[in-house]
């Protein structure tokens, strides 16, 4: 089967007193899309954010357990989070392009990681925008502000931006939920393309979306992992009653 790209072992997240994520052990395979679903407040976004140590930025958040990226436990306090985040990119619900030109938005990450050569940067910009399926719309206005793009375009730009630092894994926190249906469909198509190359972990509220884009689905409830299986199995024949209740819309 697929290689395991990232796995967690007994991962717990606490916000002060609140135990937001409880003993989650999950394996994420390369070149697969894993969807994390569950009602609001079930801990799926919190779990996602721990994977590239973004929870470090939140005051009072405490994360215990192990996160294995290759043969390295990246939840170790000694780990260089800068390198972790270079390997694990992230895209948010609301597009958050920098207030700079389209070109600079993409070149931003590579520059940090020491690429100064203009030709190399040009190449990365073109490649990343092409992969994010937005090159045709932006190639004639690379020096225009990224804020001049539409919401859907901005989101694809943000995906291109995270691709530009050549990560292995891309985390997506409801990447299409702030977009109109057409832009949303484009993002889904894009996810299907990116799967050829990256391990994608996506949090979504939209059950149809999870069913359409993902290979594996994990169902979270109150900080617990209820069920984790192939998407087709989860949506047609879940083994847990709670999963089938949620999927059939009985709660959540």
């Amino acid at each position, binding site marked *: 089967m697929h290689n395991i790209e990232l796995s967690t072992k007994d991962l717990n997240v606490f916000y002060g007193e609140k135990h937001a994520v409880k003993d989650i052990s999950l394996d994420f395979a390369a070149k697969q899309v894993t969807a994390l679903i569950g009602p609001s407040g079930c801990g799926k976004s919190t779990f996602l954010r721990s994977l590239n140590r*973004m929870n470090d930025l939140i005051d009072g958040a405490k994360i215990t357990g192990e996160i294995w990226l290759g043969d390295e436990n990246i939840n170790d306090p000694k780990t260089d989070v*800068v390198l972790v985040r270079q390997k694990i990119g992230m895209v948010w619900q*609301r597009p958050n392009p920098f207030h700079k030109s389209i070109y600079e938005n993409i070149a931003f990450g590579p520059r940090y990681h020491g690429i100064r050569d203009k030709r190399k940067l040009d190449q990365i910009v073109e490649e990343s925008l092409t992969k994010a399926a937005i090159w045709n719309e932006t190639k004639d206005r690379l020096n225009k502000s990224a804020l001049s793009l539409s919401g859907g375009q901005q989101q694809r730009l943000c995906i291109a931006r995270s691709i530009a630092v050549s990560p292995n894994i891309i985390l997506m926190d409801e990447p299409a939920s702030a977009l109109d249906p057409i832009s949303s469909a484009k993002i889904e198509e894009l996810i299907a393309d990116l799967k050829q190359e990256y391990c994608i972990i996506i949090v979504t509220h939209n059950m149809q979306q999870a069913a359409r884009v993902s290979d594996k689905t994990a169902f979270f409830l109150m900080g617990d992992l209820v069920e984790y299986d192939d998407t087709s199995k989860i949506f047609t024949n879940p083994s847990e009653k709670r999963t089938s209740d949620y999927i059939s819309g009985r709660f959540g």
Partner: protein
Amino acid sequence: MAQSGGKKRVQPHIIEEWTGKIYTSLCITFLIVTIFSMVYFVAAKGLSSFFVNGVSFKEIFGSTVWKPDGEPPLFGALPFIIGSFSTSILAALIAAPLGICAALFMVEIMPKYGKKYLQPVIELLAGIPSVVYGFVGLSVVVPFYRDLFPGQGLGIVAGATVLSIMILPTITSIATDALSALPSGLKEGSYALGATRWQTLYRTVIPTTMPALMTGVVLGMARAFGEALAVQMVIGNAPHIPTSLFESTSTLTSVITLSMGNTVMGSVQNNVLWTLAFILMAMTFIFVFTVRWLERRAKR
């Protein structure tokens, strides 16, 4: 019955509405009339030295000799204009990095203590009367410079030092607001690309909030430009262009406060002081318009 009751209830609301409208309109009219009369008064007085007393523009803006009691009286205001600009620009240059970095510390590095303890302390600085700043400047800053550098210690550097401390709260609190208002997600976006905190602050946070940060600096400069008392106490008040930053000189504000008691209303000496006041006022307008322009740019 129900209808008439309804009507009765409507009536007082109309009166209430109109009372409010009329009262607030009167207040705003009063404000506008006051502002316009002041501008008119200062402009009329200030311009009359040119058009009534026949002092030339060239003399005021180009000459360096200030001898209002001489025979004939000479009104070269260039030293004061230079004094005002150099002290306020130098003060902004000293205070801007300090204030912006202090704001960065309060918002980005220690948000918990920043909001709770540091911000009130900095706002406290803004409430200290300017005469106290001047007094401290005269007894601490001036002797300090006198011991370190040749000269009396009075001068542009002493003035700028005192002013920079005075405008620090303005710059810091506006920078704090600007940094807190950073669009959400930008910092996370930068961190998620593997940027360090320093790279995030330097490449994302500061450039994005730059127009708002500059607004604080310009407002601080405007305050420094208009400050009279504290500057007058430490600048030395010699009416010439200094050859060093530690030599006694004057500013527009200090020369007005020092001379206004010694001139007769309507005399050419008095009118020239009004001209200096007019220059101050015009400069303040320019500062305010600069701030407006920066704010508009920030919105785009």
